[in-house]
């Protein structure tokens, strides 16, 4: 926390003005929103602007819609798509197709067109399950190429003559009061505005929900996401479907407005154009997408009007994309944020000047700025004090959270691995190892470098499948279960190389861990149902409580990527606690910590076990730490179980000492057969 310096202000030197009338902030915001809404809806009629501007606004909405679909898919879920133009095209051509073949007009054809593009997108999404990153980029590129060459050349889809047409009609019955003539571009503007708002509404609802966090988790770290119980496959396909739906909606509305469409409008170059818009907007921001849509439409208009600039629009668009990528990856959204902050400082400075306490508030504003940019490192704690008081309520917190796991807690053992064998090609990394962890124990797994303990750990965690052997968790056979299913059984874990979600705050990282505790689905999130709101509130309360218990409130709203390493280790542990998992696996938790931090970690583990009854299994290289914290240890060497026992036994075990330090030369000579 930042302390404000004490200042003495000579109020007599500042002229006193009458105080501004007090309008409550909420009422003020509501009034401004309504005013803005009225303006946005009515300006084509009320403002004396040429119709061409309205057409530009229509284009801006179209661009924004496709950009929103990219924000969802690429920005939030991290699935790069160079094929967005193809989804838009499917929406357009299917609209014309159902009209041509089955006489279904707008708006009845809307759900069909949207469903078709969603379906096509999901098919592409299936490819995304196997390939990632730049290879997905190429896969979507190839798809876009194929769509242009094959799909949109098929006469059954596009219609004879290579172009599809759709008579522009009306909504509602003509000649009655309530009919809208879509030939009037101003009316069409309202239609497409409605479409954009629908898309924005749905997307922003999703973003602030369990579904949105699952999306961010998939992008942030698939490994961590599955350990939190998130079914990555499902969410990827969902994202493709939603993105395809929004893009298809844009295509549907596009052909309704234009009256016709040709395949060339939806080729790879168009997809590239849409990607540019999304990236310039900042790729993860909805408001950025809208802003970028407006920007590009405005540029289009300007470059069209001004003869000297004719034909340069594509160059400018490409340059914008490159510049944002290389120099300014935050895009319009980031610059919007900075601008917003500056405006806020100016606004509060102005406000206070008018009411007479200028000095303090201006200082306040600039200190806030400073603490956000400059000295933030200094104010972050380098160690974290554990405060676990009021054991009762925290125990309740854990127990209340996972009723389906609670009754299994009575079962012993928590984990039983029998006869695990893991082979990679010709190499046997783990050779017939069995281990058991009982409820309430802290068990350690140690061994020299390359001994196979990480492989064993991953086999238990579900990251690789054992060649033979079984893994039972809380009595259930988990051997073939994918990681997210094991999480549902009650297993949490941390990672050696921290797998937090870097662009999210500590709070949001922990909130993502409430995934399994929240039974609501994406449809409920889309419409913000009562139940969804209730569950969201409960999730936030839970995270807040755990943050307070572990003393993380100072860093709760800071982005994870700036924090010191020791804090990150605690955050990962907190994340496992949030899931309510009664059994937590720790992968080298002391790695990278100095002596003091290691000690604090050991204390924390003991406290969590003693007060909350959480069971731990940890791999560690720091054997001293392990012996101080565990009840039982397993030692692996060369893929086999070398020894097991209490820490004291292990420390004095000759075989273990030999495994770590090597045998004295005399002994080697004996073994070699002198």
């Amino acid at each position, binding site marked *: 926390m930042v302390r404000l310096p004490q200042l003495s202000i000579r109020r007599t030197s500042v002229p006193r003005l009458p105080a501004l009338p007090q309008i409550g902030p909420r009422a003020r915001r509501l009034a401004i929103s309504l005013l803005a809404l009225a303006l946005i809806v009515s300006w084509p009629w009320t403002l004396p602007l040429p119709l061409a501007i309205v057409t530009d606004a229509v284009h801006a909405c179209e661009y924004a819609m496709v950009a929103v679909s990219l924000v969802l898919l690429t920005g939030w879920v991290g699935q*790069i798509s160079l094929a967005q133009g193809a989804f838009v095209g499917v929406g357009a051509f299917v609209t014309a197709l159902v009209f041509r073949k089955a006489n279904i007009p707008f708006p009845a054809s809307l759900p069909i067109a949207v469903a078709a593009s969603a379906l096509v997108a999901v098919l592409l999404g299936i490819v995304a399950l196997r390939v990632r*990153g730049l290879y997905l980029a190429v896969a979507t590129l190839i798809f876009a190429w194929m769509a242009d060459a094959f799909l949109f050349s098929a006469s059954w889809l596009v219609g004879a003559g290579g172009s599809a047409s759709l008579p522009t009609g009306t909504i509602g019955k003509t000649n009655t009061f309530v009919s809208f003539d879509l030939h009037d571009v101003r009316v069409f503007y309202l239609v497409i505005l409605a479409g954009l708002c629908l898309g924005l509404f749905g997307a922003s609802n999703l973003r602030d929900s369990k579904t949105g966090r699952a999306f961010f988790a998939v992008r942030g770290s698939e490994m961590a996401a599955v350990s939190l119980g998130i079914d990555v496959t499902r969410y990827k396909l969902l994202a493709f479907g939603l993105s395809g739906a929004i893009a298809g909606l844009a295509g549907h509305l596009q052909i309704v407005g234009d009256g016709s469409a040709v395949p060339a409008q939806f080729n790879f170059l168009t997809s590239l154009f849409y990607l540019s818009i999304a990236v310039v907007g900042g790729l993860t921001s909805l408001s950025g997408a809208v802003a970028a849509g407006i920007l590009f439409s405005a540029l289009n208009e300007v470059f069209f009007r001004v003869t000297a600039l004719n034909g340069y629009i594509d*160059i400018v668009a*490409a340059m914008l994309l490159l510049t944002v990528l290389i120099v300014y990856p935050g895009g319009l959204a980031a610059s919007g944020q900075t601008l917003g902050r500056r405006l806020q400082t100016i606004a509060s400075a102005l406000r206070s000047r008018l009411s007479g306490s200028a000095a303090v508030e201006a200082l306040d504003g600039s200190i806030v700025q400073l603490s956000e940019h400059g000295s933030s490192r200094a104010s972050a704690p380098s160690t974290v004090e554990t405060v676990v008081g009021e054991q009762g309520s925290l125990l309740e917190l854990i127990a209340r959270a996972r009723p389906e796991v609670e009754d299994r807690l009575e079962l012993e053992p928590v984990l039983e691995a029998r006869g695990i064998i893991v082979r990679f090609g010709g190499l046997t990394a783990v050779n017939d190892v069995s281990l058991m962890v009982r409820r309430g124990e802290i068990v350690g797994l140690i061994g020299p470098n390359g001994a196979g303990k990480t492989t064993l750990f991953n086999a238990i965690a579900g990251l690789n499948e054992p060649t033979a052997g079984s893994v039972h968790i809380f009595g259930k056979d988990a051997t073939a279960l994918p990681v997210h299913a094991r999480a549902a059984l009650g297993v949490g874990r941390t990672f050696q190389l*921290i797998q937090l979600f870097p662009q999210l705050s500590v709070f949001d990282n922990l909130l993502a861990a409430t995934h399994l505790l929240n039974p609501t689905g994406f449809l409920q999130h889309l419409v913000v149902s009562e139940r969804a709101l209730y569950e969201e509130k409960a999730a936030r309360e839970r995270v807040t409580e755990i943050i307070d218990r572990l003393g993380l409130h100072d860093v709760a709203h800071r982005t994870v990527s700036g924090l010191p390493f020791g804090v990150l280790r605690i955050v990962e542990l907190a994340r496992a606690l949030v899931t309510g998992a009664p059994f937590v696996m720790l992968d080298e938790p002391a790695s990278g910590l100095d002596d003091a931090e290691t000690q604090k970690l050991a204390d924390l583990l003991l406290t969590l076990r003693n007060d909350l009854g959480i069971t731990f299994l940890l791999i560690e290289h720091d054997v001293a730490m392990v012996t101080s914290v565990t009840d039982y240890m397993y030692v692996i060497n060369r893929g086999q179980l070398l020894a097991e026992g209490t820490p004291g036994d292990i420390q004095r075990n000759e075989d273990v000492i030999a495994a770590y330090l090597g045998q004295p030369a005399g002994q080697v000579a004996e073994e070699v057969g002198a």
Partner: protein
Amino acid sequence: MSFFQDAFVNVILALPLVGAYALFALGIVVIYRASRVLNLAHGAIATLPAYVAYSLAPHIGSIPAVVGGVLAGGLLGVAVERFVVRRLRSVSQTAQTVGTVAVFGLIVALMAKIWGTGLLRPVTVVPHAAYHVGHALLFSDGLILIVVAGVATAGFFALFRFTSLGLAMRLAADNRRAAALMGIDPERTTAAAWLIGGLFAGLGGVLLAGASGLHPYILPLQMLPAFVAALIGGLDSAGGALLGSLVVGMAIGIVPSLGSIGHQVGAPQAALTLLAFVIMALRGKRFQASDVRTGLA
């Protein structure tokens, strides 16, 4: 005319395309091996040289113009690596690839602006002639493509086998870290790879333009199947890229004549896409980008 005679003719006629794709695919592979980046700007880097040659030809003659174009391609490759791909290395592999997409858009837009969107007559190196192959005609541009592609490919393999630069590039591609430990500067070998990739792209682009016309949108997009060719070869194998070029070239050349399904517009593209997806699905493990999260570092 028997099926086999038909087939034979089709194969010969498809060879120029195979040659073109081979030149492109080799460039894609050498760049990928060095940078682990798929240069999605390759089509544009291939096309701009054709325009450069077009503009230079009236002043310095056809062959010097072609050479100038090819050199421009090489320069372009080095520039893209230096100013876009290298800058984005600290972000992620994916960002680098998106960067090349952006470069693609930029170059295409520039070409359209400077030379217009009409179809131009490209530079030809040899007098226009036609040769009979069965009942069809093989034009001289096609023949040149086959010959040049063959020679260039041989040169490519010779470079890597017999020169110390080739050795350095192979070492850096096999294990970048170890190469540095041996004294090889990986940034130099990477620049060399992009230079060679650009030169080959330019060569293929100039010659392909000769065969199919000069257009800022059509020509770059026509090059896309080369990515499929490289994919078929596994992305990091030059030999595989050649095989892939054969498959892709034959597919595009021959499929249209294979009965009613083949006659569908875009049938070869659909078939190749299916093939590419199947390959990606089967060899899934290979196509996990390295920036798939391994930690905050």
